[in-house]
């Protein structure tokens, strides 16, 4: 360090000292992330390292749990005095977290620059009742991935544009004996199944709720489940889909055992990595299809945000960390597994290079993202629907009856 720089630093320290007294006393914040889809654990660790390098007075402890544990961990840690300061939260939780006072309202901290720069669709992730409960971080939806080689072998020139076509194409692949069950989904009794279902609900023009009452048991909601059951019973869907989560779908797709797969953004570059994937270079991606006369494409809003917990004792440092993690610079540098929330990033060659196909799919997909129901009782609706989907798939009850029961058990 040269002398001039040192002196500047010293005077800067002296100037700021009265404002924040323990300027160099190290503050430790704890952050909770998930180890599933979107940014990899390694990416999050690297981003965080860049942050602590720029802010040596803040130390960040990282914790990773499976998505399935994220909600319960966040809620349970509220009671711990040394709990998380920053938490990753799913688009479906702000309502519940606001009702139970889990997240800090950060509306006043959001600058006009942020408001103008971030895609409007991304903001819906963190907003509830016109208040902001964090910054959007993962802008994600499910795309239709396909194995170019298999489609070529089957003589299919273009990837399907409607769900009908998808079923027909899959049947061709099955009938030609290329794959026994060409489509892989994540239909385990978990939130992942709801994401696939929601994609279909949006394609069929259905509604989850109408006037606060369940409406998924008829119309598009019912059509969506019927489509799933048809696809399952006709044998074009991998029957193991009913115990798959996203990572199982990726593994099957990367092993060349699926022609089509519905999954999040992150699968594109992972499946194209020859180190782990047998289908590198053969991965195609398009927006999830539509339904003739109803929709051109379909998408579920699977975005996630970073928020500050009300139990945090270091809310300023936590916010600093969130701003860094969600900044355009950080997001552009790690745009391979999750796409930025910033509108102008999509014109930046550094972001788009090598993944033009994904960006093209994203432009259509992100524009039609469909939300899962916004209600403090989301967990209960979700669990009821997960059960309905599984019962219908397994033939334990008809789609009609299963959804009717789910509506009764939804707590609304």
């Amino acid at each position, binding site marked *: 360090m040269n002398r001039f720089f040192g002196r500047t630093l010293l005077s800067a320290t002296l100037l700021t000292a009265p404002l924040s007294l323990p300027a160099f006393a190290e503050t430790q914040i704890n952050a909770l992330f998930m180890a599933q889809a979107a940014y990899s654990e390694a990416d999050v660790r690297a981003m965080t390292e860049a942050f602590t390098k720029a802010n040596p007075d803040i130390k960040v402890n990282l914790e990773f749990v499976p998505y399935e544990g994220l909600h319960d961990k966040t809620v349970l840690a509220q009671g711990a005095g040394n709990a998380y300061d920053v938490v990753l939260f799913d688009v479906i939780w702000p309502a519940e977290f606001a009702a*139970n006072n*889990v997240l800090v309202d950060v509306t006043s901290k959001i600058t006009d620059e942020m408001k103008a720069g971030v895609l409007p669709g991304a903001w819906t992730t963190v907003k509830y009742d016109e208040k902001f409960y964090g910054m959007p971080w993962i802008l994600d939806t499910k795309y239709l991935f396909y194995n170019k080689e298999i489609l070529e072998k089957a003589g299919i020139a273009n990837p399907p544009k409607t769900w009908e076509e998808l079923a027909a194409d899959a049947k061709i692949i099955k009938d030609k004996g290329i794959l026994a069950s060409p489509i892989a989904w994540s239909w385990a009794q978990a939130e992942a199944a709801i994401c696939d279902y929601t994609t279909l609900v949006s394609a069929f023009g259905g509604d989850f709720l109408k006037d606060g009452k369940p409406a998924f048991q008829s119309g598009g909601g019912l059509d969506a489940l019927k489509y799933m059951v048809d696809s399952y019973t006709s044998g074009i869907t991998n029957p193991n889909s009913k115990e798959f989560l996203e990572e199982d779908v990726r593994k099957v797709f990367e092993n060349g055992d699926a022609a089509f797969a519905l999954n999040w953004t992150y699968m594109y570059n992972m499946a194209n990595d020859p180190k782990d994937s047998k289908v590198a270079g053969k991965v195609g991606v398009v927006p999830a299809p539509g339904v003739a006369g109803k929709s051109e494409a379909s998408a579920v809003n699977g975005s996630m945000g970073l928020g500050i917990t009300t139990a945090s004792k270091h809310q300023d440092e936590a916010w600093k960390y969130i701003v860094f993690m969600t900044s355009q610079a950080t997001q552009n540098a790690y745009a391979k597994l999750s796409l930025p929330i910033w509108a102008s990033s999509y014109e930046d060659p550094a972001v788009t290079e090598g993944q033009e196909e994904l960006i093209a799919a994203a432009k259509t997909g992100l524009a039609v993202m469909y939300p899962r129901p916004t209600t403090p009782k989301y967990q209960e609706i979700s669990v009821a629907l997960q059960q309905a989907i599984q019962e219908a798939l397994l033939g334990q009850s008809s789609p009609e009856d299963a959804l009717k029961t789910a509506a009764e058990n939804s707590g609304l």
Partner: protein
Amino acid sequence: MSGTWITTRAWLLMLPLLIVMVAVIGWPLADTVHLSFTDAKLVGTSGSYVGFDNYVRLLSGNAFGRTLFTTTFFAVVVVTTEMLLGVLAALLLNQQFHGRTLLRALLILPWALPTVVNATLWRLIYNPEYGALNAALTQLGILSEYRSWLGEPGTALTALIVADCWKNFPLVALIALAALQAVPRDVVAASFVDGANAFSRFRFVTLPYLAGPLLVALVLRTIEAFKVFDIIWVMTRGGPANSTRTMSILVYQEAFSFQRAGSGASLALIVTLIITVLAVAYGTVVKKVAGSAA
């Protein structure tokens, strides 16, 4: 030394244990009873008194009956299988053959394996796409194509039961083996002289020595099987279509996922009551057996 002093001294020596147990078990239990009559949420509101509402709602809901059946089925099958396998293994190990000592040492291994590791291991074995079970069965020609063991309601619970039995039958075997070795040799020799066949030798000579220790193992394993949580949480989380959801999983869902601490407490107390009734029933049998043996 007077009798009162001896008793007082005994209480003093018991005191640290009792204090800890009352503070960390007794008090929370009392609080659970209190919670069960409220609509308390896990965070935020402490709730208000709702009488027996929680109990009525839970007992009349359809989840309760089904879950109780699943739990009972799991417990009965698991405990019966473990008892049978355990006793058979013990009878085998009580014979003379090469490698007996080594085999007895191996028996410790599944039991020492942590429950969560066991669950993880079996989940990998049952994997529908890349699991060892599918691979072994198809390579042996027993199965024509890979199956989804944990994804079908018909096999998921059985798959869990196999995993649980594999880990726990060695405990029964070890207990039974020790009991067998306590059978006096002259008694066995006498039965040979009497010309008893193998079955009646087991029934009338060996079993009486086994009965006491086995009943203790039975009680322990039944209680554990009714409380089962870890193995199911790791392997299926209660799916598919709730076919492996046991009472403990249901309580977790109610209290922690839905944050309804009040009705979660009611449900937990119902489970406790069922286990207590079972244990008392067993206890009566144990006393009878112990009485007749003495």
